[in-house]
């Protein structure tokens, strides 16, 4: 930069902006300390809002939410929830209430890369999907990439949900917390050594089991999570961060049935400035997902999981104002435990069995450039090279003609082949190896200061597959690596968009169209048993998927009334053709809807600040019903009444449309002005008009009347809630 006087503005989502005038006559490194926005200081008008669209950068298909926004959105039982908030944005849906995970642009739930302080989180839900695992107090901000994904990210096809935990306040000790109907939260933060180091520790625990009258003392059902972050500043050039997350769910019915699962994540990150133009981050990350089950009435214990170690080194290089580079390398070593079964009592009669562990390493290197070509044209381009290596394991099955799945032409069904041999390898052996170049490209062309057109293309490779044949993942679903029998999933996505600010940025309009093409999306043969299956390759068929759609997001960014209106029109389909002409594949080899295909998805979120004391918030959601299958007939076998399903119309029926309205009111008591203790009450009503939204329709015979019925189950009717949040 040439010498002179500069105005430096520092903005960060959820924090006050800093504007400082710097006279540049020598080399300066300057650190800025941002102060978190607090709601009690609302008389300061903040014009910079990072949730707001950036018209000029080439980055498109990205949505950001702050912790403050997430906390205001009305949700069931008042549990502020990142994932339920994301679902209000265009292109993001879930399989319904109580469904875990989320779907981005017609992608599967296992295609989302969820990063918490850069560490991969495998399970994002508590209580089978009713709540998400992220404590809203601990979160700094959330960024969701739906397309145009920079080459820094890889390993999942559909999206990147990049979540950062806050750093502890390095000047004062502070407590933040909340008491809700389902859970309570408490967060402590403060300096360890003033100006040098700080800590943050946040915990959340549920007590649903204490007041659910259905339970007597023998039963348990709870979740908890613990987040922490410690940072230490050696000097202006060197910072060290330690982030951890630990979460667990426990559910039990007497001693007969106990179910536990959870994630653990640790990241140690060294942030180093080589110069004022070259920044670096070196991270060592450990991540673990565990699932355990005790079934006393059958006499066994079960556990499964995935553990990985990740070493990565990322650089940001500011070459000049018009050209910035990001580059780095990453290596992830993973161990998969598909399951272990052991007798849980001496008289059980169960014989212990260990499903074969699998090992893999995923290496990646990338380079990404942000390049301003002219005032109007900006591009971001890069490439990621990924290599996935399946490492040696015991007992890798060998099948005749290399075909683990057979087609029985006589009885017209797929069935598992019997292994003819099995190979054992040394851990250092390479069983299979895959290489992929993943180009990424995006551009923005500004028509004027307020308007731009953007386009992007990205290719992604995904080497892990979540084995799940239900419409949303369940905690006991197991991850499996690509290898000899399962190929990596590959995606090509194209997106184009039109972005516009109205009234000097008070309003914004974002319109995007996307098309996605996915190779090697797996599906399962009829009646496939995915639980405790040591020969999972014998129930898997290889197919492909595609999705396309149109997204519109209209936002009001300023004023007393803020919010957005989002609409998505899309289609998400899968195709599993027969491997030869004699085989039908799935659905007669025709395209079929994925279980998360939603034609229309419309949502409104609005907040209105009446005065300093009261703030109101509302959501309205309308979605096409989830794809399903209705029976085409019935018969009886062995006294059981059985519905008949068609083989060539998979997922072509629909549950009734889903819609609901939620409201909430936030009370900021006047007493707050005169004291350090800051409190707020959030009152909410979920599903105001009490719509019985179908979570499922169950076809079965009523035993008393011997008549067949379609029984619709709705999970939440009208649900009122109250939450108390505090800070001091």
């Amino acid at each position: 930069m040439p010498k002179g006087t500069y105005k430096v503005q520092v903005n960060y989502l959820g924090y006050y902006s800093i504007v400082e005038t710097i006279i540049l006559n020598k080399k300066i490194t300057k650190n800025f300390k941002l102060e978190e926005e607090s709601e009690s200081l609302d008389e300061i008008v903040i014009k910079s809002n990072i949730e707001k669209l950036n018209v000029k950068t080439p980055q498109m298909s990205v949505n950001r939410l702050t912790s403050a926004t997430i906390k205001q959105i009305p949700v069931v039982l008042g549990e502020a929830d990142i994932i339920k908030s994301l679902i209000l944005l265009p292109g993001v849906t879930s399989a319904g209430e109580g469904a875990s995970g989320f779907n981005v642009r017609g992608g599967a739930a296992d295609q989302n890369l969820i990063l918490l302080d850069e560490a991969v989180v495998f399970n994002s839900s508590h209580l089978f999907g009713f709540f998400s695992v992220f404590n809203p107090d601990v979160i700094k901000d959330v960024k969701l990439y739906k397309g145009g994904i920079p080459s820094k990210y890889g390993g999942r096809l559909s999206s990147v949900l990049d979540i950062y935990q806050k750093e502890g306040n390095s000047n004062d000790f502070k407590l933040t917390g909340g008491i809700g109907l389902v859970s309570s939260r408490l967060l402590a933060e403060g300096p360890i050594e003033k100006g040098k180091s700080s800590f943050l520790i946040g915990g959340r625990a549920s007590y649903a089991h204490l007041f659910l009258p259905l339970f007597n003392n023998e039963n348990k059902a709870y979740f908890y999570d613990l987040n922490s972050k410690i940072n230490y500043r050696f000097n202006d050039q060197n910072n060290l961060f330690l982030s951890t997350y630990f979460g667990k769910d426990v559910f039990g019915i007497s001693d007969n049935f106990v179910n536990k699962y959870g994630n653990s994540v640790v990241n140690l990150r060294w942030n180093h400035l080589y110069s004022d133009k070259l920044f670096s981050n070196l991270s060592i990350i450990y991540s673990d997902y565990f699932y355990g089950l005790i079934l006393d009435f059958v006499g066994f214990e079960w556990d499964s999981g995935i553990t990985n170690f990740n070493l990565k080194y990322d650089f940001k290089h500011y070459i000049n104002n018009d050209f910035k580079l990001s580059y780095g390398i990453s290596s992830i070593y993973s161990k998969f435990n598909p399951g272990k079964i052991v007798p849980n009592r001496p008289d059980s009669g169960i014989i212990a069995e260990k499903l074969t562990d699998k090992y893999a390493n995923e290496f990646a290197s990338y380079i990404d450039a942000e390049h301003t070509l002219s005032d109007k044209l900006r591009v971001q381009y890069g490439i990621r090279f990924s290599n996935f290596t399946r490492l040696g394991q015991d007992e890798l099955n060998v099948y005749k003609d290399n075909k683990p799945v057979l087609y029985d032409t006589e009885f017209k069904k797929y069935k598992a082949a019997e292994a003819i041999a099995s190979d054992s390898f040394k851990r250092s052996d390479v069983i299979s190896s895959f290489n992929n170049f993943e180009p990424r490209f995006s551009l923005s062309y500004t028509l004027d200061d307020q308007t731009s057109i953007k386009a992007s293309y990205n290719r992604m490779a995904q080497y892990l597959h979540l084995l799940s044949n239900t419409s949303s993942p369940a905690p006991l679903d197991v991850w499996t690596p690509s290898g000899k029998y399962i190929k990596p999933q590959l995606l090509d996505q194209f997106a184009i968009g039109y972005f516009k600010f109205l009234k000097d940025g008070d309003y914004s309009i974002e319109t995007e169209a996307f098309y996605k093409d996915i190779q090697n999306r797996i599906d399962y043969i009829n009646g496939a048993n995915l639980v405790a299956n040591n020969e999972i390759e014998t129930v898997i068929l290889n197919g492909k998927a595609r999705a396309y759609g149109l997204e519109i997001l209209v936002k009001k960014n300023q004023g007393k009334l803020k919010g957005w209106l989002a609409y998505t029109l899309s289609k998400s389909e899968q195709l599993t053709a027969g491997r030869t002409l004699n085989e039908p594949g799935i659905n007669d080899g025709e395209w079929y809807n994925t279980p998360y295909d939603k034609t229309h998805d419309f949502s409104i979120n609005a907040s209105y600040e009446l005065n300093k004391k009261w703030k109101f918030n509302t959501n309205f959601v309308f979605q096409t019903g989830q794809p399903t299958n209705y029976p085409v007939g019935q018969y009886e076998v062995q006294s059981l009444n059985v519905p008949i399903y068609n083989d060539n119309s998979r997922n072509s029926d629909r549950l009734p449309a889903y819609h609901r309205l939620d409201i909430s009111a936030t009370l900021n008591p006047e007493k707050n002005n005169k004291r350090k203790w800051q409190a707020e009450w959030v009152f909410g009503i979920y599903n105001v008009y009490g719509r019985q939204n179908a979570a499922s329709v169950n076809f079965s015979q009523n035993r008393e009347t011997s008549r067949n019925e379609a029984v619709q189950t709705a999970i939440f009717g009208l649900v009122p809630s109250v939450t108390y949040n505090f800070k001091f």
Partner: protein
Amino acid sequence: MNKIFLLSVLMSFFFIRCEKVIDIEVPSIEPKLIIDASFEVLFDQTPVTSNNSVKLRLSADYFDDTIPVVTDATVFLTNLSDNSIISFTDENTDGDYEPVDSFTPLDGVAYELTVIHNNEIYKAKATKIKSSKITSIVQGEKTLFSGEEVELKISFKDDEAMKNHYLINVDRYNYLPIEDRYFNGSDYNFSYFYEDENIEFPKTIDIKLSGITQEYFTYFRILIGQSGQNAGGPFQSAPSSLLGNIINTTNEANFPLGYFHISETDTFKIELVE
């Protein structure tokens, strides 16, 4: 372990769920022939007897109140070791065909079932599958999910020399297919939770343990899943037509539904008390 069942039950415990019967228009198809032929050889009785009924029905629209019976078919069995024919007849014209002369399937003999209906010939083969004897069944005190279940502690000795599949049938309507993968050769015991909303004690129920083929095990697992299948909801998996082991040799496309199977079956009666 049935994941779908497990998770649906778990979910129902957490939140206030509202269930209601709704009207849904379902598509219909041309009726299909249903052949329900699961023979049971009661090997622990003296003399050994067997249940050899072939039930012929037509499929109906899902919400129809009656399932039509087929009384005009020709049904016979061929002993494939000596090509002798065992004729079946529908004496009560209720669609249930029984052997004309008393008949008990023999060990190690393959039988072929032939059904001729509307000039189309349907065929299937089966050989009797060994079972094990029930060692004991006692009523226990525990409950599972609803608190209303009756615990049945079932034990039997598995045959180590064979890979066994079993079908447990409790009080006619309740089935549990199991495989000996985790208890091969052991004295296996487990608790079955029997539930009958309108139970009046004391109640005597029958429990059957049948030896089945691996194919019938898979078939039955899907059958049970579909007969109480959840359509929609996070834990649904897409159902599809469930073909058994019977083929239409005249017109392949008009495949029948149902199964032909011969098992050894041990029975046990227990009186349940409060």
